[in-house]
């Protein structure tokens, strides 16, 4: 019988939630890496037992963890317990947390600077990994979206990471941090075209490569944001999240800072589909696993008030690819609820009756086993939830 494994990253550790295909009775395991900020955990589509995790700390920096047994045991890639800690040449291992930006081959100096809040230019400084996206075809290949915004890649299971520096060549000097930092938070891999990758950055915008990461183009045409000094600017959009259905990878959905957007041509042009949403501000956006026109968002009151309008926690579902939205409330608190749902804290499983999951800054993780009609809390009192991913297991 099928089962699901939900990977939850929180501000104070990671948790693994498991259930059979009915998704009614849950086992909660954790905390793993207790006390650390677990920005993101995600399993390999090729080998579900292979899970990667981003473990961070304001004190100790970035750690990459990897499991090869579905989360039972973990290791820092390159330094498994009991193995020699140096290479045969005597060089120390332990490069798995080393994220170093490319520099100019000619001068050795930084490739570019970025814009800071005060309008001055600052060099890129690595802070943490926001998002890990394992390859669709190789369990040792993973992309990492990091702050300050850049895309890194490993092809050796996380032992070493290398920047895909072509991205920062795209008007990098105009990129600036959002209120939460300048993070690359969304990575979408096109299952029909291994050369095509979409990424999004707050607050730079959205980008696409069609050659596996060597070169990139801006894909922000059609986006509009209040207070942008140059209304025709390509760079400077605070994209919060993007999603696609793998069966229709040219159609993208985006939660912009304000506005829910849709593109039918791989991001070349966007149009707004906020429709009748009570507010079009929010963070996560997801697409149903089997219905490419069924989309989910969680409206948040405003960019100044990060909680649901009227204290009612409502997921909104569109079955028409946007514009027409219905509130999903059964099992969700409809009074006095003032949590937020962060951009990476929503996921869908692949079971026939597609399950929808999200975690809140109040520590609840909710599941709907029936595409959003009914909700239950899996667990209610975790630390603030940073990320939720789900694995559908045979």
């Amino acid at each position: 019988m099928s089962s699901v494994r939900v990977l939850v990253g929180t501000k104070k550790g990671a948790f693994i939630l498991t259930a059979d295909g009915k998704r009614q009775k849950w086992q909660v395991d954790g905390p793993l890496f207790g006390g650390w900020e677990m920005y993101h955990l995600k399993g390999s589509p090729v080998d579900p037992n292979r899970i990667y995790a981003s473990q961070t700390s304001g004190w100790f920096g970035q750690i990459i963890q990897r499991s090869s047994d579905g989360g039972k045991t973990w290791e820092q890639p390159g330094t498994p317990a009991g193995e020699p800690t140096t290479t045969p040449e005597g060089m120390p291992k332990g490069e798995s947390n080393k994220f170093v930006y490319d520099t100019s081959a000619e001068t050795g100096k930084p490739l570019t600077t970025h814009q800071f809040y005060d309008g001055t230019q600052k060099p890129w400084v690595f802070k943490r990994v926001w998002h890990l996206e394992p390859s669709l075809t190789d369990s040792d290949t993973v992309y990492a979206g990091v702050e300050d915004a850049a895309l890194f890649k490993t092809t050796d299971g996380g032992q070493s990471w290398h920047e895909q520096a072509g991205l920062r060549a795209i008007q990098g000097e105009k990129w600036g941090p959002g209120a939460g930092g300048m993070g690359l938070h969304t990575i979408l891999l096109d299952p029909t075209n291994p050369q095509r990758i979409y990424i999004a950055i707050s607050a730079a915008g959205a980008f696409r490569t069609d050659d596996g990461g060597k070169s990139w183009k801006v894909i922000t045409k059609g986006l509009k944001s209040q207070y942008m000094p140059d209304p025709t600017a390509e760079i400077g959009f605070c994209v919060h999240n993007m999603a696609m259905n793998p069966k229709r990878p040219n159609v993208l959905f985006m939660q912009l800072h304000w506005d829910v957007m849709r593109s039918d041509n791989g991001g070349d042009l966007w149009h707004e589909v906020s429709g009748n949403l009570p507010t079009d501000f929010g963070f996560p956006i997801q697409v149903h696993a089997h219905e490419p026109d069924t989309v989910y968002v969680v409206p948040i009151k405003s960019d100044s008030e990060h909680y649901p309008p009227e204290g009612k926690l409502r997921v909104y579902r569109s079955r028409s690819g946007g514009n027409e939205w219905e509130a999903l409330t059964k099992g969700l608190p409809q009074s006095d609820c003032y949590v937020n749902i962060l951009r990476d804290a929503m996921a869908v499983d692949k079971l026939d009756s597609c399950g929808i999951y999200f975690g809140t800054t109040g520590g609840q993780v909710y599941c709907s086993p029936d595409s959003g009609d009914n909700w239950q809390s899996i667990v209610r009192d975790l630390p603030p939830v940073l990320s939720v991913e789900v694995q559908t297991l045979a």
Partner: protein
Amino acid sequence: MVRVVIPFHLRTLARVQGEVQLEVEGPVTVRAILDALEARFPMLRGTIRDHVTLDRRPFLRFFACEQDFSNEPSEVLLPEGVATGAEPFLIVGALAGG
């Protein structure tokens, strides 16, 4: 033999309990201790000082014999008590954050 006390979370990463004891070759300095510590526990590389610049991470401090060496050059000789193992070298996380 030099004794080193590392913060709880780094002990977890390194899978050790209590103090760490290290053989340090040559003069006992902050840099020599950290080199020896990272050679024995490579998983700690990057957690105490930056991979490339080797700068101390901002929220960590270094103490030896009740003296703060956090802002001293990393080549400064540490007190005899640390060099002989009579006193531990302390790597301390700042009391900051949530």
